């Protein structure tokens, strides 16, 4: 945004902060942050377990795991 678009130039700090607050959207509480963190960790662990499971099962099944009838 150029200077010509802002009638008070760089002086209107209050309105700029309000805009910033609007742009922040919903601010999470500490409890919501903790819940989100626990969910994120659970998803990460589940995905890691899935990767390990596929890796180990590929070893178990051997090279033939990719040979499948179409």
């Amino acid at each position, binding site marked *: 945004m150029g200077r010509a678009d802002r009638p008070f130039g760089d002086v209107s700090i209050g309105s700029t902060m309000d805009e910033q607050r609007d742009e922040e959207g919903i601010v999470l509480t500490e409890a919501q942050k903790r819940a989100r963190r626990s969910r994120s960790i659970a998803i990460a662990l589940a995905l890691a377990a899935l990767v390990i499971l596929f890796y180990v*099962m590929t070893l178990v099944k051997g090279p033939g795991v990719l040979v499948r009838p179409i």
Partner: protein
Amino acid sequence: MSLVSEGADFRGSLAAGAGIAEPSLATFGDYFALMKPRVMSLVVFTALVGLAVAPGALHPLTGFTALLCIAVGAGAAGALNMWYDADVDAVMIRTSRRPVPMGRIQPGEALAFGLTLAGFAVATLGLLVNWLSASLLAFTIFFYVAVYTIWLKRSTPHNIVIGGAAGAFPPMIGWAATTGSVSVEPILLFLIIFFWTPPHFWALALYRTEDYLRAGIPMLPVVNGDPSTRRQILLYTLILVPLGISPWLFGYAGAMYGATAIVTGAGMVTLAWQVLRERRPVERASRNLFAFSILYLFLLFAVLLVERGWGGLIARLAT
């Protein structure tokens, strides 16, 4: 306003609530509760028996993967059930503290969670074990959610008779995971759970009739009354007990299983007879039958596992 339409209003308010949902406070524990862990444990146990008694070799890790996928698939079905049934769960004492009616998880979150788990469970089982067991798992989830939860549960007093098939599939899925096929033996295990389900749930419904009435669920005691339900319980028990003995009669199980099935089967018939003779407000026989029916099914499958499956599992682990 009828009970059913009150339920519909509640569903509407839940949907509206989902649209303006606050950031979720749901934790890992809430999502785990959404998977109905107690039902999941019974599903895993019966699937383990089907997997272990089946002939043929199965690598222990493949067996573990199959059980994990079946457990997650059962959890997915539980989550989808709680998504759809949030309105009736809220008005029933037994289910009112579940995560969705308590507001800890939004219905939309439960739906997304259930669909994601179902997709991963079926795909993983198909890719890492075999596609027959994956197809059976997919059909079981579909049957439990679409046929039982969405269609039958609110429309017919025979809801748990037909819907009980969903709970009867796990040993067949376990068997299919090992053998890649289905034969008479897993069908017998299926039939045992299928005919066990009505006496088990109707015994519960006899002393929870008001709960089901309040939720507008047409369980047999609500629609046909007490005496009819008590007769039906005895009838299904009389079909169940010979089916319970049949694996021994057909030579699929040994003497220990036969003796267990006969003794516990006699217990089931005795309790079903006591339920038939009992009249409200006494509900002791119904409670006893409900509790004993769980022990009955557990014992049948546990003895089968010890007698047929355990030796095979140890041999597979050793090789």
